[in-house]
């Protein structure tokens, strides 16, 4: 139809759609007018009234058919057909409510799982920052370190150089996470906020609803701009939505800050995993992070930043330019920047927030839920197949009275659409309920913020899934009815066994498919479980019973000398307590969020390759650190109280570093250059885990805390007492020294290990849940097929029984048929799993993706489940009454 034709026909189509009755009435009126005129004509010709009517009707042809043909000729019938199909479909579903409920439940769960995972992927990886403009052009920036280090943060001067020179970037901004104690009235609360560059709010396109964002000069000058923008939540909850808040003062880390703005509702900052509550300019950095003011130090790396590329600029182009900038910086500042590059990463690979930790889990989840969806489709198809077999009589009748095959197909697709749409609706609801689920699965969950986003893209994805599901579950039964011949089913129901067998391959195929997929999921879940067990019980190289906490001296405004005195006094007091074996401080906790300091090093007698940056991470630790954490000292001595800022510089290296830089020879007494100063090696410590449980042994060294001081290190206590009493004891001692100090959360290092491995825990929980669901679906599928086969072949079973087969034989017969299907599925599944489990890669710790024990276990579980699924049909088969069946 061309446009001109639509011009005439559209009003008609609309009318026949919206007022079908009116159109119908008029059509009837027209036909009757015709009849009447013909009758009058006939009477005029001299016929009797009765004769005239009969003759007119005859000339007309069948009135009802003509009416129907007129209706068909009218447009709008596609929609009317559809509505008719919908009504009919609903009636069909209601006719077998159990089956329909089963199918809808199945689809709801699986589409829900898909929608939830997509909403997490969207909300955590792709569009993690609500209200932030143009997230698709945002890239995270980090330093890349040649050699062992991998990724690191930037320094502020490096960032400024990057911002000045990157012409392909629209904007670049800094946003480093920090904590703060917030003094409200007489109590203090810990909150999370960001240290941001002054252009932050402009760069992300978020405008405060009250007050203003930061001004350009607020980046500059140590501690000279005590201003803060607070979050909407903080404004509502802590300041009761005070509209006069701007200009008021709030103490943050004991420094009064002027509140200059309130962020809009629904803005949570730019850190995956936490909702930010306040933002301060970088000039205030010294107040919020231990280690003092770092804005002028090119070697102090703490800057977490993003760039937004200009429209149309690819990541590769930008990376090229940024690498060139980094290369220039290397030449200009060899002392701090040798071997350091700058890399940009898409948001889902952001190195410094939870996107990177959740990423691999979510990737695996996308595959897993797709599998579960396929299983569900197979299952529902199977259920519908069984029903379509029952309905073949109805189908034949419809074909016989003139329905086209296309019309039947439309009908089947409509029924599929009803199921899929209901499932999608339910699934979206599930996804909505599950959007905060990830946080609940994480051990440190409460403080975290990892919401899924149910946005238009997720909805589009769900709609797409709905369509695919519709096609699959609609077409499979249609495929079965394509050979439907008119005569066969209309004859008496024969109930022959042969007929069942010839149609059975499709159902069997679907069951094998389901078993295959759920076997793969089982293997995946078992591998992850095994991996979690191993990683949780792996030896991190330190004692996991050690308690760790911190004291809020920065918030209490301690300067460096006061902090040093306080640390020594506290250790002395704690060491005297019963039950406490030893106590010490260290700058950074292993496996924690904070990254270790790192430094370019030089070693006597070791010539680095020209381009190689010998950058090694280190920790600043107090006396007795190794003993307290139970890290074996392989050679030499530990640090002592006497290794202070006035003494000669010393260092302890780990075993890997000894092997690498001193060729395995005892390095005691040799020299090591750290940050341009020479220190003497006094000890060798055993290797342990530093940043993650699955890292390979790497070079690492320790320096005494007083020689590279931080004001607020973590406190480690080796104790035999339970955590609660240790906490009470430490708090008491801290308060003896200073009533104003507070203790941070106290946890054991085992808890630290657990938190560091929480992505694995999430993966295990989710994959096991879905694996269980898949197993259940496969069992239901197998049960359905076996039940159906048994119900259809009662004659054959009766015959066998009449010929002397016992109940046990029949039981065995049915179960072995079920097991044959299962074995087929497991075989395919095993082959596929061998290829697919490598996808788990990053999530597996010390477990081969082809672990034979795991595969064996999965086979056992699958087989047991299959036997259980076949038991009931088998039992029914064994109860066949030959006399009754054969007579029937």
């Amino acid at each position, binding site marked *: 139809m061309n446009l001109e034709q639509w011009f005439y026909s559209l009003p*008609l189509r609309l009318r026949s759609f919206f007022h079908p009755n009116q159109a119908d009435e008029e059509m009837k009126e027209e036909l009757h007018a015709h009849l009447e005129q013909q009758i009058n004509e006939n009477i005029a010709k001299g016929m009797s009234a009765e004769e005239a009517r009969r003759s007119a009707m005859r000339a*007309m042809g069948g009135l009802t058919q003509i009416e129907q043909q007129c209706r068909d*000729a009218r447009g709008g019938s596609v929609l009317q057909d559809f509505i008719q199909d919908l009504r009919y479909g609903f009636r069909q579903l209601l006719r077998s409510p159990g089956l329909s409920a089963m199918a809808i439940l199945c689809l709801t769960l699986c589409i829900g799982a898909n929608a939830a995972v997509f909403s997490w992927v969207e909300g955590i990886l792709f569009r993690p920052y609500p209200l932030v403009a143009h997230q698709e052009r945002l890239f995270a920036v980090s330093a890349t370190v040649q050699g062992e280090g991998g990724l690191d943060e930037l320094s502020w001067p490096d960032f400024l150089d990057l911002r000045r020179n990157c012409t392909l970037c629209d904007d670049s901004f800094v946003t480093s996470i920090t904590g703060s104690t917030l003094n409200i009235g007489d109590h203090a609360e810990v909150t999370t906020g960001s240290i941001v560059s002054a252009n932050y709010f402009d760069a992300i396109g978020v405008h405060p609803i009250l007050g203003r964002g930061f001004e350009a000069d607020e980046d500059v000058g140590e501690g000279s701009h005590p201003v803060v923008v607070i979050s909407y939540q903080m404004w509502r909850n802590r300041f009761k939505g005070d509209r006069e808040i701007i200009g008021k003062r709030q103490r943050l880390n004991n420094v009064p800050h002027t509140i200059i703005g309130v962020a809009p509702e629904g803005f949570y900052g730019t850190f995956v995993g936490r909702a930010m509550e306040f933002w301060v300019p970088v000039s205030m950095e010294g107040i919020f992070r231990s280690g003092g003011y770092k804005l002028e130090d090119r070697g102090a790396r703490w800057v977490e930043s993003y760039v937004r590329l200009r429209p149309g600029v690819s990541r590769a182009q930008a990376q090229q330019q940024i690498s060139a900038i980094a290369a220039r910086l290397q030449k200009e500042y060899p002392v701090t920047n040798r071997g350091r590059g700058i890399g940009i990463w898409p948001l889902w690979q952001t190195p410094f927030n939870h996107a990177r930790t959740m990423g691999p889990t979510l990737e695996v989840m996308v595959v897993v839920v797709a599998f579960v969806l396929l299983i569900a489709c197979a299952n529902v198809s199977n259920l519908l197949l069984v029903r379509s077999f029952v309905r073949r009589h109805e189908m034949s009748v419809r074909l016989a009275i003139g329905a086209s095959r296309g019309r039947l197909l439309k009908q089947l697709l409509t029924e599929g659409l009803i199921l899929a749409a209901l499932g999608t609706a339910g699934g979206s609801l599930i996804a909505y309920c599950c959007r905060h689920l990830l946080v609940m699965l994480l051990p440190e969950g409460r403080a975290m913020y990892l919401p899924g986003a149910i946005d238009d893209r997720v909805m589009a994805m769900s709609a797409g899934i709905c369509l695919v599901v519709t096609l699959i579950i609609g077409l499979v039964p249609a495929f079965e009815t394509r050979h439907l011949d008119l005569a066969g089913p209309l004859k008496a129901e024969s109930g022959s066994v042969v007929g069942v067998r010839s149609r059975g391959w499709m159902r069997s195929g679907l069951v094998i498919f389901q078993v295959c997929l759920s076997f793969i999921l089982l293997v995946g879940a078992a591998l992850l479980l095994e991996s979690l067990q191993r990683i949780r019980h792996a030896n991190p190289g330190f004692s996991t019973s050690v308690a760790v906490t911190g004291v809020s001296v920065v918030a209490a405004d301690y300067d460096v000398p006061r902090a040093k005195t306080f640390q020594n006094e506290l250790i002395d007091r704690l060491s005297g307590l019963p039950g406490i074996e030893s106590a010490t401080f260290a700058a950074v906790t292993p496996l924690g969020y904070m990254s270790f300091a790192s430094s370019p090093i030089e070693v006597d007698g070791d010539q680095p390759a020209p381009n190689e940056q010998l950058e090694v991470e280190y920790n600043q630790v107090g006396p007795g650190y190794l003993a307290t954490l139970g890290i074996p000292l392989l050679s030499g001595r530990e640090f002592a109280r006497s290794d202070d800022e006035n003494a000669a510089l010393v260092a302890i290296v780990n075993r890997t570093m000894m092997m690498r830089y001193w060729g395995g020879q005892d390095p005691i007494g040799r020299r090591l250059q750290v940050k341009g100063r020479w220190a003497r090696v006094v000890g060798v410590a055993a290797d342990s885990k530093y940043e993650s449980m699955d890292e390979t042994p790497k070079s690492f060294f320790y320096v005494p805390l007083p020689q590279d001081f931080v004001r607020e290190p973590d406190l480690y206590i080796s104790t035999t007492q339970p955590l609660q009493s240790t906490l009470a004891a430490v708090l008491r001692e801290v308060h003896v020294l200073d009533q104003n100090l507070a203790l941070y959360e106290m946890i054991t290092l085992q808890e630290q290990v657990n938190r560091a491995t929480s992505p694995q825990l999430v993966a295990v929980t989710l994959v096991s849940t879905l694996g269980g669901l898949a197993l259940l679906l496969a069992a239901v599928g197998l049960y359905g097929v076996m039940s159906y086969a048994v119900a259809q072949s009662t004659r054959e079973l009766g015959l066998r029984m009449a010929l002397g087969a016992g109940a046990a034989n029949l039981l065995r017969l049915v179960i072995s048929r079920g097991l044959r299907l299962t074995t087929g599925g497991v075989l395919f599944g095993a082959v596929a799993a061998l290829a697919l489990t490598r996808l788990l890669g990053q999530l597996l710790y010390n477990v081969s993706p082809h672990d034979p024990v795991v595969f064996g276990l999965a086979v056992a579980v699958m087989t047991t489940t299959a036997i259980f699924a076949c038991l009931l049909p088998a039992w029914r088969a064994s109860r066949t009454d030959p006399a009754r069946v054969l007579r029937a």
Partner: protein
Amino acid sequence: MSKPSDLVQGTLDMLILKILALQPSNGWAISQRLKQISSDVLGVSDGSIYPALHKLEHCGWIRAQWKSSENNRRAKLYSLTPLGRKQLEHETANWNRVSAAISGIVQLKEA
């Protein structure tokens, strides 16, 4: 949809268009006219023009209006649209071509 079997598909449409090109008519008049000019040869039942009329209307070739007739009865009066006129010309040309070809073949003398 069953069509008058011995009528070439589309021919009925063309005939109706032609009749309406002569003058706007209602359904009954069209069927009478059809019988009259074709002397019942076509064997079209009275009713079967209605589905065709509805189809033509939906194609935008004819237009229907309810008009009161002289004895104060409502009757649906069909008339040709400009689009329908074009279609008629097109189909007539087609018909002439095809029928000329066919009659040419039919009139071949047997050897």
